């Protein structure tokens, strides 16, 4: 099969029977519903760009399994060049969509499972890697969109999975038979899952022997019997019927997240890639998390490019573009954006092969990049608000702009420089408002793991003892046992 186009991807979603709830009702027509369509459009861009001569160099790759050209989103990294191209691809697509296009999560899950199943087999004598390669061939051949399903609801965070009052707070195996396994539980914050074809389930934390039934990784169609998605609210979801007030009407904000409930879901053995091997749950989590944290200087770099552009435009429209403090703040926004991008490029360039042959990022630099995102995006957005002015928070609605009675007042009193139509100024203000606040900001904090998760990995890999030794040598302190 050839790579899908955006419209082929969208049409393929119509053939699924995905059970999605939003606002207390089951959604009948997901694809054409304005609550979901912007996220679907954003994902469709990843398909169209594989066919665009200008972008295909980043969005496609050559499969190491078949030698065929495939979507990079289904590729296993074979070099540091592949890792760098991934980051460049993410920035390039984010510059077009101005938002999350969702496919990186499954991309990272594929890469994490490829190398970890190999290592599991080498250490434990299992046979998951060959099974996973068969699944990978299927994904590459069909060019399906795969969601990465890691985060469990977690309940009482002080307790291990097996210690929870409700066992379903972590996805676990409730039955094994000759045909496969049965799962119960839920996955939270599932980016792009309602418009994916399949999900790759992985454990969310390191496990102990007592947690063995929670150490499970497998692929499940998003419309499999027993799978229910409850779509998350976003800060602008009551604005979906207009063109201006939601800011980015075509592609939306963030990725469209859902809580995915697994109610006794059957998974055949050929789609099971970990089942009880608790010793490798932590390795899989770290592998996936580092790949995913690698992304953020790419995609958030691209999103920030759009925010910077919008902020520079609003400065033009407000007549303040030449003010030195405005230019200084724009410079700072560029500096922060390129610093994030530099982190993603660095952790990719410093990547290394795993025993499977697949390449892995430098995990310390990847975690540092994502931790910077939890700060820098807030600062970029703060500077954007500073330059744009308070009207981004107090603007009347699109309906008021169109209203025969009050529209002329909106037109008259929200004009900036005389040469720019008021509607242009309002459109850019709404883009800034939606890209820099609410759900979009929280996503920068917690997407790919909360800051403390990055700090734990940074401290683990920071080699503090070596740093102490360096200081001791210079201070003339003799080495002691």
């Amino acid at each position, binding site marked *: 099969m050839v790579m899908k186009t955006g419209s082929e991807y969208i049409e393929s979603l119509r053939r699924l029977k995905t059970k999605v709830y939003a606002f207390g009702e089951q959604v009948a027509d997901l694809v054409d519903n304005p609550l979901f369509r912007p996220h679907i459009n954003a994902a469709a861009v990843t398909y169209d760009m594989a066919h665009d*001569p*200008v*972008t*295909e*160099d*980043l*969005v496609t790759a050559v499969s190491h399994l078949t030698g065929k050209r495939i979507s990079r989103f289904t590729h296993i990294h074979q070099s540091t060049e592949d890792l*760098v*191209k991934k980051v*460049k*691809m993410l*920035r*390039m697509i984010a*510059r077009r969509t101005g938002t999350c296009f969702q496919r990186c999560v499954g991309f990272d899950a594929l890469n994490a499972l490829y190398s970890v199943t190999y290592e599991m087999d080498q250490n434990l004598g299992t046979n998951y890697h060959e099974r996973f390669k068969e699944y990978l061939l299927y994904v590459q051949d069909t060019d399906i969109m795969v969601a990465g399903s890691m985060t469990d609801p977690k309940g009482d965070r002080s307790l291990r999975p097996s210690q929870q009052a409700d066992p379903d707070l972590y996805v676990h195996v409730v039955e094994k038979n000759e045909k496969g396994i049965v799962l119960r539980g839920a996955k939270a914050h599932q980016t792009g899952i309602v418009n994916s074809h399949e999900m790759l389930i992985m454990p969310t934390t390191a496990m102990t022997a007592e947690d063995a039934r929670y150490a499970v990784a497998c692929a499940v169609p998003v419309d499999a019997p027993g799978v229910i998605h409850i779509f998350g609210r976003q800060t602008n979801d009551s604005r979906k019927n207009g063109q201006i007030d939601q800011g980015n009407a075509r592609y939306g904000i963030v990725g469209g997240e859902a809580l995915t409930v697994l109610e006794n879901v059957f998974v055949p053995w050929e789609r099971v890639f970990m089942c009880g091997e608790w010793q490798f749950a932590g390795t899989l989590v770290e592998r996936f998390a580092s790949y995913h944290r690698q992304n953020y200087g790419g995609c958030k770099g691209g999103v920030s*490019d759009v925010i910077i552009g919008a902020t520079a435009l609003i400065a033009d429209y407000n007549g303040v573009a030449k003010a030195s403090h405005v230019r200084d703040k724009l410079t700072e926004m560029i500096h922060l954006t390129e610093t994030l*991008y530099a982190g993603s490029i660095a952790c990719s360039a410093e990547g290394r092969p795993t025993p499977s042959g697949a390449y892995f990022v430098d995990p310390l630099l990847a975690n540092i990049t994502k931790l910077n995102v939890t700060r820098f995006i807030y600062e970029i957005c703060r500077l954007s608000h500073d330059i744009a002015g308070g009207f981004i928070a107090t603007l009347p609605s699109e309906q008021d702009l169109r209203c025969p009675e009050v529209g002329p007042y909106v037109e008259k009193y929200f004009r900036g420089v005389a040469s720019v139509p008021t509607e242009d100024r309002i459109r850019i203000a709404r883009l800034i408002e939606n890209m820099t606040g609410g759900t979009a900001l929280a996503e920068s904090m917690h997407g790919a793991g909360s800051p403390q998760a990055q700090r734990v990995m940074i401290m683990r890999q920071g080699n503090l003892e070596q740093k102490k030794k360096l200081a001791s040598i210079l201070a003339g302190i003799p080495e002691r046992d």
Partner: protein
Amino acid sequence: MAERKLTAGVKYCGHCNPQEDGPALVRKLQSRLPELKVVPWNDRTYDVLLVVSACPSDCATRPPFNGPRIEIAAGEVREWYVPAGHPAENLLEACLDEGLKVFGTRKGG
């Protein structure tokens, strides 16, 4: 100028953070060389491979191609190769000369 059409297979870098608009550069080149026909690099046959990177990092993948090629990065002709006596030599030189007018400097050869 040319006796026949010169077909160029174009390979773009991906344009992640472009300093130049690659397709606009190619259109400009075509407007100066009406005999130049442009096709994607993965088309079956062309006379010359044109690699266009939109910033100085020049990261476009180089497709396997044994014939003449011109490589442009950030609006600058970086490198070219024309085998002596190649049927496309004159056309390629014309294209390159026109390209230099578009892109400014001549560094390789």
